[in-house]
């Protein structure tokens, strides 16, 4: 039984369509991330699930109970959906102490004072904030406010947790730390989480599945590994890092498993094999995506493996990044970049040959 189901959900603001016919399911205990550029409709989607925004089309269900049905104009009030939510601004109430903030959902539910004290203390312990219980809320740092916000969302044991860019107000170091902590907590409690972010690194590090959104549409849903290495479109590929895309033509196609194909492709100055998730006809033109870190320098000594794509480029520029070195290369009229070990000596103007394993090259329909 999925925890959240969206069926053909849309949201229009006047003539502007912020969310366009989205289908999505989130399983029990799963951590799903909505990822996309600013303004693509992530927050709107989350708020429609929360009930803070009404969908203009489609159906939202939580645990098989329909909570929003645009066709019947039925919308369950947000307070009746039993969802926890963490806001980007944390929305900690400044006129209350930390304890009162966290106790609020329990007070609303008319729990006894003893139970409130017990559960608030326990939840504050969970986020390591128990020593701040009596602090007035404005006297907290960003990271502490974030913990309080999470505690407040967890204290009444909601069925699902919704988080809208909860880490975006923190500095980079704290963001990673809080992210990892939250992921550990989520796994321990097994709480279903739907998480919004525009930070791809965060999305990949935290999620079971990532939903890539663009202009109100879902482009692709999959495990972080899938999305990163096997994007279904150029837009998704472009989303993570700066992949190299080579135009090429298919020479042959071989099926090696369920929905896994090996294509024999060639382009200007290169040829070899790559993987694809769909069959192709010979002569068809495609794009081959190769991530810069998967280009391997071939020295005169190293042998070229069978089927490996080989490509030669002239070094136009190099950028030293500490752990790695990025080199920009020219190959005929095309440019590409590679990330290699920083120890490897490179001079501008020299020519370098690269090899790419078939598993690291991925075909995308242009």
């Amino acid at each position, binding site marked *: 039984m999925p925890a959240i189901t969206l069926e053909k959900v849309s949201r229009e603001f006047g003539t502007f369509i912020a969310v366009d016919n989205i289908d999505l399911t989130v399983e029990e205990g799963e951590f799903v991330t909505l990822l996309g550029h600013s303004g693509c409709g992530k927050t709107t989607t989350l708020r429609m699930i929360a009930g803070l925004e009404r969908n203009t089309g489609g159906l939202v269900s939580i645990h098989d109970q329909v909570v929003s049905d645009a066709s019947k104009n039925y919308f369950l*009030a947000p*307070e009746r959906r039993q969802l926890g939510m963490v806001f980007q601004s944390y*929305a900690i109430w*400044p*006129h209350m102490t930390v304890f009162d903030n966290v106790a*609020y959902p329990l007070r*609303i539910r008319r729990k006894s004072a003893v139970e409130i004290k017990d559960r608030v203390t326990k939840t504050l312990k969970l986020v390591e904030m128990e020593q701040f219980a009596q602090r007035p809320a404005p006297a907290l740092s960003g990271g502490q406010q974030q913990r309080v*916000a999470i505690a407040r969302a967890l204290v*009444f044991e909601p069925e699902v947790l919704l988080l809208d860019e909860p880490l975006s107000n923190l500095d980079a170091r704290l963001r990673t730390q809080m992210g990892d902590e939250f992921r550990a907590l989520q796994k321990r409690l097994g709480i279903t989480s739907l998480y919004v972010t525009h930070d791809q690194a965060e999305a990949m590090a935290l999620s079971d599945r990532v939903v890539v959104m663009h202009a109100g549409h879902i482009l692709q849903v999959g495990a972080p590994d899938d999305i990163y290495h096997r994007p279904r479109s150029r837009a998704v590929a472009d989303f993570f890092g700066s992949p190299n895309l080579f135009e090429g033509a298919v020479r042959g196609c071989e099926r090696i498993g369920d929905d896994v194909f090996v294509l024999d492709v060639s382009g200007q100055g290169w040829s070899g094999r790559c993987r694809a998730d769909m069959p192709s006809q010979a002569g068809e033109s495609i794009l081959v995506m190769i991530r810069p870190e998967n280009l391997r320098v071939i020295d005169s000594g190293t042998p070229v493996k069978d089927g490996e794509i080989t490509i030669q480029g002239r070094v136009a520029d190099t950028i030293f990044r500490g752990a790695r070195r990025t080199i920009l290369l020219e190959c005929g009229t095309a440019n590409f970049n590679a990330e290699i070990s920083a120890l490897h000596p490179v001079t501008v103007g020299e020519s370098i040959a690269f090899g790419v394993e078939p598993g690291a090259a991925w075909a995308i329909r242009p």
Partner: protein
Amino acid sequence: MTTVNAIAGDIREGRYEDRYRRLKSWGFTPRNIGMILLILFLGFLTLYPLAMLIYGSLHSTPPGMAGEFNLNGYRELLSTHNLIALLNTLGISFAKTIPSLALAVLFSWIIARTDTPFRGQLEVLITLPFFVPSILTAMAWGMLGNPKVGLINQAYMAMTGGTEPLINVFSYGGIIWHLMQHSTPFLFLFIVDVFRAMDPALEDSSRMCGASRWRTFRSITLLLMLPALTNAFILSFIRGIESFESPLFFGSPAGITVVTTEIFNAINYRSGPQPDYQYATAISVAILVLMFLMVLVQWRMLRGRSFVTVTGKGYSPNVTKLGPWRWVTFGICVLFFVVTVVLPIGQLAVGSFFRFFGFYDPSMLTLANYVKVGTNPEFWRGFCNTMVLGVLGSTVTMFLGAIVAYISVRTRWRGRTLIDTMAWLPWMMPGMVLGIGFLWAFAILPKSIPIYGTIWALFLAYIALGTPIAVRVMVGSYAQLSLDLEECSRVHGATFFQTLWRILIALAWPSFVVGWVLTFFGILRELSASVMLYSVGSEVLSVIVMKLWLNGLAEQVSVIALFMMLLVIVFRWVQLRLLKHHITTL
């Protein structure tokens, strides 16, 4: 030519530089001289009348006459009559502030947080009564709610056939009702922005915690606004204490006295043959002490209690969808506008065309009132005085406010706190009290400085009364302009004055205009200080209508009041147009 050459020679020879350096070593830099002049001027406007109030309260004879010093004024204060006046003042102000605050919160919520149709227009309509001079609506309501011949009672009696009037404005209820019409939009202007500025996530998160809409409003929204509401409450309460028009028009006929009318009566037509200045001044000092205590309370209550609810992220506040109820909220707003603006204007319009107030028979229709007013030289004089004072007074006030605000927020000059405090002082001085202070202050000036009894007396009083608002408006405007802009300009080679002129003036002028119009409205509606300081020849419009009204000429009053209403609406319209234009061009 020769002198010029001589001076040029002096400069060449460095004599002037020498002298200049010597002056400088004593602290006589242009900046310091400017500061001293500013301090002297502000002191003359605020500290001097304040000191003269105390002097006058101890002085046995009217201003400008020889007399002795005694405590008779204060001794007279201690009477049951005065105790009742004091309790009336506090009680009436309290009684009008509570319902005004409730109404203002309701209107703010409707305008800022619901999908009520035509909210933008409604906001303009709701706030209009704030700009209408109280004396006009007071007179209109004096006619509308007159227990014998008022239109409302006539209509009520005609409909029900009863003989008892429905309402009588000459009562406590009447005073409170009239004060509410002005303080509701006043409070609204404060509160609506607080509603707008609140981060909607603070309320959303309460809903997600399981709280209903109403529960959220009670435990989150209202509590978050509590500091702002307290502030607004105290401000409105203070304004209630210093109100003059409502108790004069509706209280005096019913024998209800408050502190301001008590002062007015003591100087104008109290029982004795002589006006009792000492007594009036003593009450003024007492009311000042009261105000001072109120301000202290306000400071104590608000210390460290402002919740920063505004975050940097741009957002639109939560809008509640009211469904069919939105027409109810629409109706409530329209009703308020009709009652506070349309009814009074309607009464004035009707009244101006009939020969006698209260006898609305077609045979009584006439244009004679217009002719009488149009040919009344006193009216034209008053009109000219008001316009001249309004235009000149607002301009000078705004320049003063702009300079004081600049020095107090943008510089670290010595003396800026003193300047800021002095400019703020009139804020807690009721117009009437300041009027009396100036009365004494101008009367004992040497004859060679002819301010007493001239239009200059009003001019200076208006500047003093308007300065606190002018400073606040300009402080707000400078605060929005980042310091970087200014520093950037100076780094790029502009001198201090070029910077002031190019950057600040160019960017701050919209606020200047807004403040100017506000000050102009303030001068147009001013009655309580004017009534103390006017003399024959220097009457302003508000004084003229009051005199006509007290002489029972309600018909002519209607004509002039209608004319002033028109003036207010035109100015308000221009102001809104300017604002709108400015906002869209930003």
